[in-house]
């Protein structure tokens, strides 16, 4: 039975397409997102920023409907009371201190002066900038600027937070900090959309992903479930060690391994159809060999490979 009073999802796209002349930005995408952190993954040019601009009412869909909390963002700015948006390219007022900047933006949401200052201090504290909030933004590092952007998106306590490549250009510590912030927001029940073209980054934040490629929706759902679906595809494990040939003799006897290669000196590539089973036998086999291992990598464990597999699956299908 349909509940007519059912709350609309935070984000709803129905058969949305966007064309730039003859170039397709987004191609017939339908999805609904509500609660938790969702990673929007895709290589450069996949349509992530176009998707966000459609959500933020900066683009009108060529076809289909976009709804934020049930309202068309192209026609009304009212959903933005409940949205915090971090644009990849947005500039800030560099002459202002972060506290002044964020409290100014808080007032653009309709907060009183005292509320704006108090809330700004809290969000700056939340993103770890409380010690430098009296410093001008122009003097901040890239990572600190990204955190200021996140703080200004949070100042009015939005229900939906849209982060367009927030980790881009950040140093590892800033990345870790921002990831922690995003995870915390997700755990508080906020709907967070975060885009990236790096799988590992998103994997550290959330398991819920949407994969875009050439404007098309390639996959949606739990990252591990998607990986499991891909398990029947060949995977590679690259091991750097002293004597790859001796190690290869041990691995080739194991069931999950169907082939080995030696791409370079001191490197062994194991080929398997069952990645998790191969990882299960990895420690015992290495211990048995008694070899010193420098590194173990999964070359297929990145977004390009994932997309390649998904496209292969689609083509095969």
């Amino acid at each position, binding site marked *: 039975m349909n509940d007519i009073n059912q709350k609309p999802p935070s984000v709803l796209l129905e058969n949305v397409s966007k064309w*730039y002349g003859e170039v397709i930005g987004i191609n017939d995408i339908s999805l609904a997102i509500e609660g938790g952190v969702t990673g929007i993954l895709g290589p450069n040019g996949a349509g992530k920023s*176009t998707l966000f*601009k459609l959500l*933020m*009412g*900066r*683009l*009108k869909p060529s076809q289909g409907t976009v709804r934020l909390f049930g309202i068309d963002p192209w026609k009304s*700015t*009212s959903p*933005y*009371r409940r*949205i915090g*948006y971090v*644009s990849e*390219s*947005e*500039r*800030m*007022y560099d*002459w*202002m201190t972060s506290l*002044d*900047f964020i*409290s*100014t*933006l808080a*007032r*653009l*949401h*309709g*907060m*009183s002066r005292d*509320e704006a200052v108090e*809330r700004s201090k*809290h969000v700056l504290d*939340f*993103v*770890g900038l409380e*010690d430098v909030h009296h410093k001008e933004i122009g003097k901040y590092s890239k990572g600190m600027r990204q955190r200021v952007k996140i703080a200004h998106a*949070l100042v*009015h*306590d939005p229900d939906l937070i849209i982060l367009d490549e927030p980790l881009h250009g950040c140093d590892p*510590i800033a990345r*870790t*900090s921002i990831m*922690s*912030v995003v995870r*915390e*927001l997700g755990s*508080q029940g906020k709907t967070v959309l975060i885009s990236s073209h790096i799988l590992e980054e998103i994997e550290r934040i959330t398991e819920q992903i949407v994969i875009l490629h050439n404007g098309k929706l390639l996959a949606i759902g739990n990252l591990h479930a998607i990986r499991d679906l891909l398990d029947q595809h060949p995977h590679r494990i690259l091991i750097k060690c002293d004597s790859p040939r001796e190690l290869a003799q041990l691995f080739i006897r194991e069931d999950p391994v169907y082939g080995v290669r030696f791409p370079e000196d001191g490197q062994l590539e194991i080929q398997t159809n069952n990645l998790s089973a191969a990882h299960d036998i990895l420690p015992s086999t290495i211990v048995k060999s008694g070899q010193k291992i420098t590194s173990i990598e999964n070359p297929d464990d990145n977004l390009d490979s994932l997309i390649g597999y998904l496209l292969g699956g689609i083509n095969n299908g």
Partner: protein
Amino acid sequence: MVTNLPDDIDIAGTKTRMEVAFGSGDGDEDMTAIVAKKESNLGAIFEQSYKPWDGELGPRWMRNYSIFRHHVYGLFTSKGHRHYHPFVRLTILVILLASLTPIPMLFLSSLLPGQDGDFLSKMWGINRFNLWGQILGYFPRNLCMWPLLTALVVGGMISDDRRNGTSAIYFSRPINRFDYTAMKFISVAVILGFVIIFSYFAYYTSAIVFRGEGWAFLIDTLPLFLGGMLSGIFLVLTYTSIGLALSSISQSRFFAAIGFLSIIYGTKIVALLIDMQFDTSILYILSPYDCLAHIGQFLLGIELNYEHPLAFSIISLIIMNIVSMSILVSRISSMEVTRE
């Protein structure tokens, strides 16, 4: 294990074998190193504790007021507001003080007895010509002061947002394009109005106070004062709409400022040259200043010194404002959208 070491070898490390053998230092005895102390804690991973906010966001007027104050308060302090260059602030202050110069003369006229006081009062006192001149006099007000004031204020009003992409700050919040445009317009108009209308009001008030005029004088001159104020409002609105239109079509505050000055001075000079050469004033309808001056002369009851009909100036001024507002609205509508 080391045993049977000579007594003079110090295995604690303060003396080396070389020093023991040759009794000389190897240069390392005073060896020191300075290691930069890590004083900041920027590398620390901070603890997150997000606290939801249970307050109520204010209504539309509060959001719009915050845009207004950002631009207007910035003239007084950059802290948390729009940044105006100190030179711009100083110039605006100088223009304001210059526009108030008749007030000390009126004060002086009230102090001086007899003919001297009467002379000063006649020169700077309230009459329809002085009221017109306070707003629409060409030199120095409309040659140096008002156009320069407008150029400085409108220069970066929208073009800065276009150049820096800071308009996204507004449009990703519940602020629609109408509110954004309206508040920018009102901000500029209020700043111009503060200098132009306020100085006019101060001049009129001080003339009454310093000369000790009564109700009869007030009743006599009030219509003239209101006519002048209406002219001032027209001037502020026209200069604001032309200036903001120019600011909205560029990404350079310099272009907007120079463009505005070029329109004001350029049309005036062309019309003046045509008038001198061909003895016709019709081209003055292209000059925003002259249209305003023409209408101002009518409102204050001064003899019109333009040959063409007043209706031409009124229609021309309306068209100028409509065209400017259309450009402004069209450019703001496409902001952030046309970038795609």
